[in-house]
């Protein structure tokens, strides 16, 4: 048993120590397994990493803050160095945040680093998810990892919101008040939930302590767990890659983790840390001393949540003041509940379900490891942009007051426009995006068949003028011709010969999605085009298959 390990005698001291450790924990097999994992290289693949690094920075800076933060809502009178608040009545939580900002060495920097990292964390998570969506990386076998990612997004929002409410300043209190309003808007049980959550009538004396436990224990633990599951699945599934020569569904082309990626990723962590540190050192964030301690009576103008909760706040701002009615002596307040929950519910439901919706419509149950270029999946790209527009309209609505003051327009007009865009924007976004994708595909097709236009006009001996087209090299050509373009799959009868209603719906969705399509260039077309340039101009047009 020990024969193999004993025969190896290290020559140096470092070698001896390494060998000692290795023979006891088996490090070399782990390094062998993970160090040889191949990752493809593309800038858009790095945002998951950015999210991970921001999270690590959040843990580091957050730990520092917990040393000094006191999550108590006991009343006190400020006696610190900040003159405009001297003697003002406030909670201990707010006072300790002021102390972190003004009296603890490096405290303000750490607070700002923590907050900026939180903004970066959610931003990079969002960016990462958009990349995964638009390239179709969520398809089999990665559907469950997509779901884990969606859960991570929700956890990130939860982490952000619970943290936002901790300093107990006026801004965070206003935010909590809105949450309280939404909870109280739930029919029948809302009031009771609110009383339970706040330990009495809002704001009570419990909420900061409770949110603190969630913020520093439960939510980060869940995030860590989900990150572990997420990364484990990435290892199991292997990374996706963009189409290119030599890349297939059964291989991964790129660099191994060790040593190239380990070095790159390690360096990248410090790059992200550096960027956030520079921002945190130079840009003020959440100036709690400006807002003052929380007091339920004042509400400041320009009260907004952090950017990632903004869209929910925007939906509340867009909702007209209708939908409140009384049934059996109980007030049902849909004018708060509906905007707070419906758009978020719709967006998250579609997000979670999208891999299955797409599979159902296309009936494509194959594994996919090669990514789509967004233009080569016009329907999906269109849907994605519709979602972005839907989100952005609500997002913009959260800053409607600042739009009004900074662009010198009427606040009412901003609201009216955004209300219209709330419904029309996603539709327009879908149509325009799909048309742009199809146009780009046609352009790709043109270039693949006829090469790049050089702008050089040549006169032939018999007097004809032609423009010289420069053929693409094989690498570029491969990118343009190697993609899949799903076709309309009409409703199919089942074994009994019936076409079920759900199948009819699927068929019409399939028509809606894939009726307009641009077929990939075939080998025959390519050869024809290259041998007989002038003659194939017309036939190439015909080759564009239309579902009509």
């Amino acid at each position, binding site marked *: 048993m020990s024969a193999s390990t004993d025969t190896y005698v290290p020559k140096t001291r470092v070698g001896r120590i390494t060998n000692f450790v290795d023979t006891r924990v088996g490090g070399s097999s782990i390094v062998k397994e993970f160090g040889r994992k191949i990752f493809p290289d593309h800038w858009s693949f790095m945002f998951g990493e950015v999210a991970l690094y921001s999270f690590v920075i959040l843990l580091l800076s957050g730990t520092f803050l917990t040393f000094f933060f006191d999550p108590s809502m006991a009343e006190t009178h400020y006696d610190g160095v900040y003159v405009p608040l001297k003697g003002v009545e406030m909670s201990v939580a707010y006072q300790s945040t002021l102390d972190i900002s003004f009296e603890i060495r490096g405290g303000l920097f750490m607070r700002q680093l923590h907050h900026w990292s939180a903004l970066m964390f959610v931003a990079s998570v969002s960016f990462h998810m958009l990349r995964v969506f638009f390239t179709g990386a969520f398809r089999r076998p990665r559907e469950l990892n997509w779901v884990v990612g969606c859960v991570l997004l929700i956890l990130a929002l939860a982490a952000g919101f619970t943290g936002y409410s901790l300093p107990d300043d006026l801004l965070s209190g206003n935010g909590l008040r809105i949450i309280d309003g939404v909870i109280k808007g739930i029919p029948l049980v809302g009031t009771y939930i609110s009383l339970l959550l706040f330990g009495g009538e809002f704001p009570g004396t419990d909420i900061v302590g409770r949110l603190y436990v969630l913020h520093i224990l439960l939510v980060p633990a869940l995030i860590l767990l989900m990150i572990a599951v997420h990364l484990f699945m990435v290892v199991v599934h292997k990374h996706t890659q963009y189409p290119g020569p030599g890349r297939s569904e059964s291989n991964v082309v790129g660099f191994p983790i060790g040593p190239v990626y380990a070095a790159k990723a390690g360096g990248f962590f410090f790059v992200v840390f550096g960027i956030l540190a520079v921002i945190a050192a130079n840009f*003020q964030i959440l100036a709690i001393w400006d807002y003052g301690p929380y007091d339920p009576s004042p509400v400041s103008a320009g009260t907004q949540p952090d950017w990632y909760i903004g869209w929910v706040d925007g939906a509340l701002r867009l909702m007209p003041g209708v939908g409140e009615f009384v049934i059996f002596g109980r007030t049902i307040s849909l004018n708060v509940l509906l905007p707070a929950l419906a758009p978020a519910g719709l967006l998250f439901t579609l997000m979670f379900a999208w891999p299955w919706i797409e599979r159902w419509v296309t009936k494509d149950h194959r594994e996919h490891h090669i990514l789509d270029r967004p233009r080569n999946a016009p329907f999906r790209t269109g849907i994605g942009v519709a979602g972005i527009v839907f989100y952005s309209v609500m997002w913009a609505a959260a800053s409607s007051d600042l739009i009004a003051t900074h662009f010198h327009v009427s606040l009412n007009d901003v609201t009216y426009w955004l209300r219209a865009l709330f419904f029309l924007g996603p539709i327009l976004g879908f149509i325009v995006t799909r048309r742009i994708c199809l146009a780009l595909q046609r352009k790709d097709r043109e270039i693949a068949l006829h090469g790049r236009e050089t702008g050089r006009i040549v006169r032939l001996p018999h007097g004809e003028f032609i423009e010289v087209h420069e053929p693409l090299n094989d690498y570029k050509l491969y990118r343009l011709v190697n993609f899949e373009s799903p076709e309309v799959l009409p409703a199919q009868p089942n074994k009994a010969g019936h076409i079920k209603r759900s199948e009819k719906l699927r068929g019409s969705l399939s028509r809606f999605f894939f009726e307009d399509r641009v077929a990939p260039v075939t080998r025959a077309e390519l050869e024809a085009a290259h041998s007989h340039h002038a003659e194939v101009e017309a036939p190439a047009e015909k080759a564009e298959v239309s579902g009509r």
Partner: protein
Amino acid sequence: MKALSQRRRHPLAAVALLLLGLLVTGGLYAVAGNVNEAKAQTTNFSAQDIEEGEKLFVANCATCHGIGAVGAPQGAHGNQAGPALIGVGAAAVDFQVGTGRMPMQMSGPQAQAKPNQFSEEQTMQLAAYVASLGAGPAIPEEDLLDVAKGDPAAGGEIFRVNCAMCHNASAAGGALTRGKFAPALAGVSEAHIYEAMATGPQNMPVFSDANISPEEKRDVIAFLKTIEEQGSPGGFSLGSLGPVSEGLLMWTAGLGIVIAFTIWLTQRSS
């Protein structure tokens, strides 16, 4: 006592009670009103100032406010080119003309601040003329504007309760309905802040001396001047606009720089 209880059902008892109630209410109101107006007129303007002011007024203001500052006639929808200025006081004139809001550059949701159109002396003369038309809030004395005597912490509390809902807790300004807005307060002089509170220009409510006393107004000014002078301890304030400008920075500069680095890191291969 017995005579009173015997006559409680007299036909005129209700009328007497009503009269008594009205007298008490009216009397109290008059006293309260006098408390406000007691400080109303403290600066004395000379007759010459008033005369010069009237000339300026007729030449520059009467188009909208009418000769004698009686206001323009109301239009069909209750619109009015300019309101009557009798009783608005010297403080209103000093604020409106001193900040360039009057004469108004153009019609709009509210008058915008711009470079002054009149010299200090002319402004004073206009104020003298308008003050002579009826009692109103006066231009505050130096003592009420002395920031050193104010308590910024107390002023901060008053500011958050009374002013922040329009002007923003960090005095960065905010939107009102239909294109109206509450301006940012950085760079506004002490006297103009005081006068704004006392006279309620544009869409601002009047904070009378009974509501916020002159000393409390001084506290508010002290608070505003303190936060203006201290700057932003955490670096660039991004307009003190809160989460919107912070999110904007993260999505533009923050993500932009990260994207630049990702492109650099993955540049050599593929």
